[in-house]
């Protein structure tokens, strides 16, 4: 490992910006966020960056490192080619605020529009029984740290800017967690098609590839939801069956 490296960091505001090069000492074990902090402490006190846990648990430090959507705190320098400058720029799908910080408020708004959890009544002792095998599938979705890297990379948002029509992979994961929750009684399938635009996803799996929590977003969340949409909204037989059986949990 060299003793110093150059980081080409995006410095800018809402309207414009440019890359600036900073050279800083590097040592064993360092991650990109460490380098950014070092630059901030020694050369650019006002360099804007979000972070909290420095351990991949909070999903604050999302950025594009050499063009790849990454958590800066989990990107080791020894995985990068330090012979050239390492570019660090904000997530490009969201409006810039300053430097590495973007306006992700859209995500919080979308989440609010998804119907909340609605459990069935508890058992006589006031609690619920659920088995590990039943909860595991949903636990995978609940690992999401809301880093929004999947949103950043999804072409429906990134290239086609369909923020009004499409909730994005993160919120499909969220909806899947609710839909597949063994206790939930609400039904979000119609909304998913009509208002959340699940149909726009053409299962390219780009989201899955960047998820730092290794959630199989496409295979385990989106495809099963798409199947429900198809069953429910296009298949009258399945629909009738469901009405007879009651509840929304067929899969």
């Amino acid at each position, binding site marked *: 490992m060299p003793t110093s490296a150059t980081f080409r960091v995006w410095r800018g505001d809402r309207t414009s910006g440019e890359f600036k090069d900073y050279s800083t000492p590097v040592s064993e074990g360092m991650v990109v966020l460490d380098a950014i902090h070092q630059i901030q*402490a020694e050369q650019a*006190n006002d360099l804007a960056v979000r972070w*909290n846990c420095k351990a991949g648990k909070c999903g*604050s430090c999302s950025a594009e490192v050499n063009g790849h959507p990454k958590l800066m705190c989990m990107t080791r320098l020894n995985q990068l080619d330090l012979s050239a400058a390492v570019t660090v720029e904000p997530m490009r799908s969201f409006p810039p605020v300053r430097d590495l910080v973007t306006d992700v408020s859209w995500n919080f708004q979308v*989440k609010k529009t998804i119907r909340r959890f609605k459990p069935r009544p508890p058992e006589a002792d006031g609690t619920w029984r659920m*088995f*590990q095998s039943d909860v595991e599938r949903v636990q995978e979705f609940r690992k999401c740290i809301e880093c929004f890297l999947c949103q950043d990379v999804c072409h429906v948002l990134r290239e086609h800017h369909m923020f009004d029509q499409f909730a994005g992979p993160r919120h499909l994961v969220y909806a899947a967690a609710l839909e597949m929750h063994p206790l939930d009684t609400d039904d979000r399938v119609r909304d998913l098609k009509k208002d959340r635009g699940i149909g726009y996803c053409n299962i390219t799996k780009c989201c899955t590839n960047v998820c730092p929590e290794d959630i199989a977003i496409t295979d385990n969340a989106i495809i099963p939801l798409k199947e429900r949409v198809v069953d429910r909204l296009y298949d009258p037989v399945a629909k009738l069956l469901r009405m007879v059986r009651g509840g929304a949990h067929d899969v």
Partner: protein
Amino acid sequence: MPDYHTHEHDVLVVGAGGAGLRAAIEASAGGASVGLVCKSLLGKAHTVMAEGGIAAALANVDDRDNWKVHFADTMRGGQYVNNWRMAELHAREAPDRVRELEAWGAMFDRTTDGRILQRQFGGHRYPRLVHVGDRTGLEMIRTLQDHGIHQGIDVHMECTITRLLKDGDRCVGAFAYERERGRFKVFRARAVVLATGGVGRAFKITSNSWEYTGDGHALAYDAGAELTDMEFVQFHPTGMIWPPSVRGILVTEAVRGDGGVLKNNQGRRFMFDDIPPNYRSQTAENEEEGWRYTQGDKNARRPPELLTRDHVSRCIVREIKQGRGSPHGGVFLDIAWIKERLPNAAEHIKKKLPSMYQQFKQLADIDITREPMEVGPTTHYIMGGVRVDADTQMSSVPGLFAAGECAAGINGANRLGGNSLSDLLVFGKRAGEFAATFARQQSGAAIDSRQLDDAARQAVEPFERSTQGEGPYQVQYALQEMMQELVGIVRNEAEMRRALDGLARLRERASRVGVGGHREYNPGWHAALDLHNLLTVSEAITHSAIERKESRGGHFREDYPDKDPAFGTVNVVVRKERDGRMAVSRTPIPEMPLELKKIIEEMK
């Protein structure tokens, strides 16, 4: 007030971790209009990082458990200087608070009969920690967040409170800047709940994030509220130590709860060498018994690795100091060894400790299913905080409430693992409920504009000095370095006196710090403003630690290495005098009711 954007709420909650969210939900359910302010985005507060679990005597795994045992464990862990009423309420109410989370969508790991699973943790007599693998905090904060966003709460993200506003004695609001644009905001409220978390950033090696600058502690202190137990800082025994950039990041106690053992460089399980008398009857006789305990054998007693955190930390320091440490100055924590006992150990470890596995793999190139980890103590939690009424969580300032890590009382001299997340739920709820009730009884308040102008003027001072002044980070690093060195795990009077002198000099330096750039999302500016809080809590910790001339729980003095019964009946309290001095006093702990005393006797 034309110059400031003003918001009006019945209840203003400062902090959106577990305590703040729970308080906001409760206040709102009680009919109050609620504002919730946090420094980061929603869902990123420290609570998200909690790993091991939530302590609650559900008795799902061992039916001998009940609130009384939990109460006695908490008091024993806190070395009996806890606020016993808080310890009682906490133990009684935690089970309901956990079940409530399930009603809001939380999905905890399950027992084979479909109930909430509970795991072993240090200082808890029975398996008590409700958990989801090692990401319990994420489950908790997400559940509260996803429930809270539908409650009509006004959330102000990336907004930092710099001062509490008063009308006479009463707290009636707060002054803030928002990060994004750097504009000032004024919050008018009939009651304010502080839920700002801890102070770990006052030390060099810590598991805490940038947010932990003791804001709530300092805000309350400056507003005239009392702080108590500030000498009790928890140094968690197992933080990462290598590579240097990850130093301090937490390695959950669940590693030991699931069978991990501590060894020195001679391969010895040194924790068997020093078991405190009051825990001897509860501790395993030998390695075999300890292993059986971690595997759920109800007749086995816990291994000494699961003794309280203060004790384990000191044992580790001893091993290192006496030359039996690991290559990078820690000791070994080994979970890989369980492959001698379990057929599919590697899979088992990955399942039980997924984020620990990832953390070491990605950050340290260590596969914990094959090799031991290197660990050492890290500053983790502060037992001390705002002194509050046990039932209502109101501080000594009317209208000012506190809950969660920034409040004191429940933990006494040392917190048991898992007792924080449950504390957030129990006392977050109580604070929200009573703040709403208090707010209903208040009439409008007057905020004189001088308070606001003063707060605004102070906030922009660092810009006036611009970059001619010293940078904020250099002062912050010097402070962290000094506190770690002089007021850390092992303390003595002479060093702490030096620390006080050092703090005075740092205060002087902080008053000359300058920042460049403008007010929009400028971390240098934020760091400059945080310095006052860090200095205030550091002073409070040091003064309180000098005052307690004994060793107890998280507070260890080499010049007074033993417990002194005289100090077992008092809490140390600090308060701001009119002239700005920090007044330190000892306040007697009220007599415990007979029935609680009996419980403690029975559980001895």
